[in-house]
């Protein structure tokens, strides 16, 4: 089909408009928003595919808003190069349709509608409005605004037509109806065994698998229980065998016999032990005797030796005494000489000391005398200064006026002035101006000199021959003020009198003089303080004390031949030095003497000690000798030695007896005998306790086994194993069938997918030349129902809905062109109408798509409705401007 002319009247917003000159190839119909581009497409859809007598909402939807006019569409088009004309007026039952065929034949109304279905290969609606989306291949190629990115509308008509075309190329390899039913049955059966998403076992297969696992666990637990049961039986058997062994009479008899023998052995060893102990005691006694005998001999020998030692010591002491006496004699002589020297030195020292004391006294006298003179001078100055101070104090005391007095006087003077002012403020000024003042008297006297007169008290002016004039200023109030002034003046006078001055100025002068006297007093006092800081009385005492000291020191001094102080000082030092030298020699002589004395003391002490020791030694020697002789009379030395020899022999004999007895005792192994008794007793005790323990264990095990054995653990084990085997068999059967079903299902799915791929290969191949220009490296993938699944890019497939909106509308446009190519071979040549189809594409992709459209335009009529006229300039297609076609029509319709 090729559209040539479109005339529209009273269709929605279009009142009267027509588009002419549509050519083969690309056509661009441009218009601004609301210009009616989409209305043109709607008018075409309505005219071709809706019956002329449509009513209701569909009719209302194509009528101008609010008008009940009859929309009309008049179309000129060609099919297979032959021209048709279609005129439709939509007005319900009054609607009309007229189709004029190339041969001039006209089809009217319903005939026209039916003829259109035949020509355009669609099945119209038997009743009511037809859904455009279901009408043949037309919705695939006539794309409404804003729907391009949604993919392609593949309705059954399109699918059948495309598949018919593909079968001619590829052959019938798709799933047929029978195979589809088979596939569905297999899929259903497969889904009973495996989940859709994870493909994991489910349903009966999963239950069987779980049952096997569950039974395995149960069986394992039961087998463990059975093993425990068997272990308990083994333990019971073992315990019973052990119990039987322990209960054998021979066991106990044997142990008891062993105990008797062991106890006899112990008794035997105890006898031997007693023998050994007796021998030991006897031997110990012999040892004591031997010890005593030995000690007696030793003691005797010691006494003899001691006596010899004493004699020798006494001899040595006597020799020592002689030596001490010989040493003492020269010491006495030395001591006498040293004492004589010391006495000489002491005499010399006394003389030197006397001379030194005299020199010291002269020196001290001179020093004190000088100090006395200095202090006396200071005292005299201080006395003079004290006189000055007293004079100053007297002078200052003459002035009685103080700062407070002056302040008070000034205050009282101010109060007098204030009272005067107060009185004067109420006074009356009387000014005399008499031409002849002769005889005029004032208060009985002549007129005052001052004129005018200020009156603060009653006054009388007598004018001769005229009478008198009594003037009374202020009345009672003035009297009060005058009284106040009088009090002030009185107070002021009292204070002046008390102070003894006549005025405030005198008071100020007196105060100034008082301050000067104070300053002088301060100066004298400072002088006095500097001269006698300790106080003049104290200073006087010092002077007096020095005078006394001078008097004392002057005694015994030749005052007539006094040296000066410096000479006295030198003399004092020289004599002192001499005294010091003599004193040093004296000290040395004393030490020398002391050493000699000490040596004499030592020598005397040695002599005394030696003499004492000699006496003591001599006494001791005599006593010891007497004592030894007395002992020898009791027992002689030989007798003692004989007793010692006898004791030695007795001890040796008894030691041998003890050793023999002990050897016999040890040979009897007393520890072993005792241990044997203990061991046997323990064994007997253990035998009883073991039997008790075993009996209890046997009872416990029997009880436990009886309890467990009731339920038949072995039987339960076998029963569980039977269940497990059955479950395993069932699971194996189910699994085998399920796995076969899985394989079958997968094979069918794979086969179907491969068949679809193979079947749709021609479509894909037709898309590729266009797609390569816009999306290099991409390959479109279709599902079996011809919808676009996505784009294959290398190893990955990008789902259609995941593509950008721009890419989706590009792929949709290019795929439509491919379908148009494919269907053209089926004799279906529909114009491609795109209503603002590429609004989301970037410029590069847009231009690439435009090139594809230009290529397609060589084979197909393409009508582009757009508000972006400039973007399509490169297409090189004739452009029809909607506004030029029906500018008045649109406006009219809108209004």
């Amino acid at each position: 089909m090729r559209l040539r002319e479109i005339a529209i009247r009273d269709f929605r917003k279009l009142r009267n408009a027509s588009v002419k000159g549509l050519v083969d190839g690309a056509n661009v119909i441009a218009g601004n928003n609301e210009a009616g581009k989409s209305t043109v497409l709607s008018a075409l859809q309505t005219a071709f595919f809706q019956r002329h007598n449509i009513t209701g909402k569909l009719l209302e939807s194509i009528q101008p808003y609010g008008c009940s006019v009859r929309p009309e569409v008049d179309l000129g088009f060609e099919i297979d190069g032959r021209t048709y004309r279609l005129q439709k007026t939509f007005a319900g039952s009054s609607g009309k349709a007229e189709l004029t065929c190339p041969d001039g034949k006209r089809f009217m109304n319903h005939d026209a509608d039916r003829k259109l279905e035949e020509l355009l290969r669609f099945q119209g609606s038997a009743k009511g409005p037809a859904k455009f989306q279901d009408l043949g291949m037309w919705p695939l190629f006539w794309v409404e605004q804003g729907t391009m990115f949604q993919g392609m509308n593949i309705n059954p008509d399109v699918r059948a037509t495309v598949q018919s075309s593909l079968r001619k190329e590829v052959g019938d390899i798709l799933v047929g109806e029978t195979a589809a039913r088979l596939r569905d049955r297999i899929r259903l059966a497969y889904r009973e065994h495996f989940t859709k998403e994870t493909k994991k076992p489910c349903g009966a297969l999963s239950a069987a698998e779980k049952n096997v696992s569950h039974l395995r666990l149960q069986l394992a637990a039961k087998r463990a229980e059975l093993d425990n049961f068997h272990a308990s039986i083994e333990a019971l058997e073992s315990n019973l065998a052990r119990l039987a062994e322990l209960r054998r009479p021979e066991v106990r008899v044997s142990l008891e016999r062993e105990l008797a023998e062991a106890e006899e052995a112990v008794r035997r060893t105890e006898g031997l032990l007693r023998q050994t102990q007796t021998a030991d005691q006897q031997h110990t006694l012999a040892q004591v005797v031997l010890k005593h005998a030995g000690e007696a001999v030793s003691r005797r020998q010691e006494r003899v030796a001691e006596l010899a030692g004493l004699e020798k010591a006494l001899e040595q002491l006597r020799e020592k005494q002689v030596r001490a006496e010989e040493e003492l004699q020269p010491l006495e002589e030395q001591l006498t000489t040293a004492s004589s020297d010391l006495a000489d030195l002491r005499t010399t020292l006394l003389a030197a000391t006397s001379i030194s004391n005299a020199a010291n006294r002269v020196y001290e006298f001179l020093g004190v005398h000088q100090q006395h003179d200095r202090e006396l001078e200071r005292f005299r100055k201080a006395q003079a200064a004290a006189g000055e101070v007293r004079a100053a104090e007297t002078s200052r005391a003459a002035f009685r006026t103080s700062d407070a007095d002056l302040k008070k006087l000034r205050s009282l003077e101010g109060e007098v002035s204030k009272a005067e002012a107060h009185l004067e403020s109420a006074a009356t000024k009387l000014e005399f101006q008499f031409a002849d003042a002769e005889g005029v008297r004032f208060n009985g006297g002549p007129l005052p000199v001052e004129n005018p007169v200020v009156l603060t008290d009653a006054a009388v002016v007598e004018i001769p021959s005229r009478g008198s004039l009594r003037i009374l200023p202020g009345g009672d109030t003035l009297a009060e003020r005058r009284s106040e002034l009088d009090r002030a003046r009185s107070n002021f006078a009292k204070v002046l009198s008390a102070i003894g001055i006549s005025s405030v100025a005198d008071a100020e002068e007196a105060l100034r003089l008082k301050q000067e006297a104070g300053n002088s007093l301060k100066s004298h006092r400072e002088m006095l303080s500097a001269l006698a800081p300790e106080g003049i009385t104290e200073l006087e005492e010092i002077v007096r004390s020095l005078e006394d000291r001078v008097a004392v020191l002057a005694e015994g001094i030749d005052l007539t031949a006094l040296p000066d102080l410096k000479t006295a000082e030198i003399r004092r030092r020289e004599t002192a030095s001499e005294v010091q030298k003599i004193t040093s020699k004296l000290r040395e002589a004393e030490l020398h003497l002391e050493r000699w004395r000490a040596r004499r003391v030592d020598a005397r002490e040695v002599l005394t000690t030696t003499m004492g020791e000699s006496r003591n030694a001599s006494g001791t020697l005599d006593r010891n000798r007497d004592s030894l002789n007395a002992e020898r009379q009791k027992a002689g030395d030989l007798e003692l030695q004989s007793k010692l020899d006898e004791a030695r022999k007795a001890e040796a004999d008894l030691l041998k007896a003890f050793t023999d007895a002990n050897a016999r005792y040890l040979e009897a192994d007393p520890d072993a005998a005792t241990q044997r008794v203990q061991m046997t007793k323990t064994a007997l005790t253990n035998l009883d306790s073991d039997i008790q323990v075993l009996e209890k264990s046997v009872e416990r095990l029997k009880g436990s086994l009886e309890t467990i054995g009731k339920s038949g653990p072995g039987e339960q084990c076998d029963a569980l194993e039977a269940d497990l085997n059955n479950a395993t068999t069932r699971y194996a059967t189910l699994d085998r069938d399920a796995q076969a079903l899985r394989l079958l299902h997968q094979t069918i799915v794979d086969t179907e997918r491969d068949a679809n791929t193979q079947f749709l290969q021609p479509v894909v191949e037709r898309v590729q030349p266009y797609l390569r220009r816009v999306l290099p490296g991409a390959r479109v993938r279709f599902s079996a129902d011809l919808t676009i699944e996505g784009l294959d890019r290398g190893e990955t497939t990008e789902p259609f809905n995941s593509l950008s909106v721009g890419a989706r509308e590009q792929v949709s446009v290019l795929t439509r062109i491919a379908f148009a190519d494919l269907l053209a071979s089926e004799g279906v040549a529909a114009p491609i109408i795109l209503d603002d189809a590429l609004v989301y594409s970037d410029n590069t992709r847009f231009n690439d798509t435009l090139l594809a459209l230009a290529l397609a335009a060589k084979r197909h009529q393409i009508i582009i409705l757009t508000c972006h006229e400039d973007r399509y300039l490169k297409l090189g297609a004739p452009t029809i401007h909607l506004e030029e076609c029906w500018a008045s029509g649109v406006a009219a319709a809108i209004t």
Partner: protein
Amino acid sequence: MIMGIRILHSADWQIGKQFESLGAPSDKLAYLRQERLSVVRRIGDLAASENVDAVLVAGDVFDRNEVSDLQIRELLHVLRAVQIPWLLLPGNHDPFTVESVWERMLRFGCPPHVHVLKDGDPVILCDGRLAVIPAPLTRRHQYEDPTEPFATTATPAGAIRVGLAHGSVRNRLHEAAEQYNMISDTRAIDARLDYLALGDWHGAIEIADRTWYSGTPEADSFRQPESGYVLLVDLPGAGQPPKVDRVGTGHHRWYDLEATLQSPDAAEALGTVMGAVNKPCDSAVVQLTLRGAVSLAERATVSDRIAELEAEVQVLRTNLEELIAAPSEADLDEMGRQGFIGIVVQRLRAVHGDASNPDQKHAATALQRLYIEHVLGGRS
């Protein structure tokens, strides 16, 4: 005139056996388990009707020592009802150990006519005319011959000496038999026994002179066709040979069926092998092993027949691992060689032929399923 003695010889009741190796549902196994006790009732009835002097049970009365008290009490209940001496010998499944079934049975109160043979002391019955010398096992495996003391065991003069033991007779059983509890094959002669009643071998057989295995009275294995009997033994007198009759007591018949199926005669071959199961089949326990290669169509038929058989018999255990189903030309024609299904079939066959493919073992079943779903419309 000295009266002879009649005894009933049985063994290997194995009460409490769970048949766990069958891998069958527990409700099916319950029948087999219950029959271990039912057959004792039948033995009691037989003993009563045949006026036997004693029933000798040569070991393995219980399947194991760890059966429940209930099993023991149920057996006691059955034995109490038949006032004939029951001589119960502990075997290798139920040796007389501490806390064994026997101790428990004695604790529960054994009636006087039920003798638990816990030691080798002979049991003198029939007023001294019958001396039963037992050889109870006191542990599961004994390396010494348990019947060794028989020769030296004194019995009343003139009494018929009957040995009662459990084990494998030396030199007489194949190598697969137990290697423990070995019994001399000349024991009956050595010990001057008139009859040696043995247990352990589950088939009824005279194993040596005057020496018999009675076998289990109720079959419990596919490998032992001579099961399901007791021996009615007439002992005319000391030193005289016994007269032994085998009397059937079994309820369940165990069939171990095997067949190799080959197309196109698979169905017929399967029919033939299944024909071996005697009617009625509801007491049959069947193990069916099929091998060979069949078409998908025949494999579907085989499945149908097996399903039918499973419904008929008591227990059916199948082993079809070696039965290979491969699409025949006819199968391929039916499924379509071209088009979508044809491609699926080709792919599955490729998987089946690819040893490196982990799904190879599932491919045949997948093909079979495809066949069933596609050709048979889901009927298998």
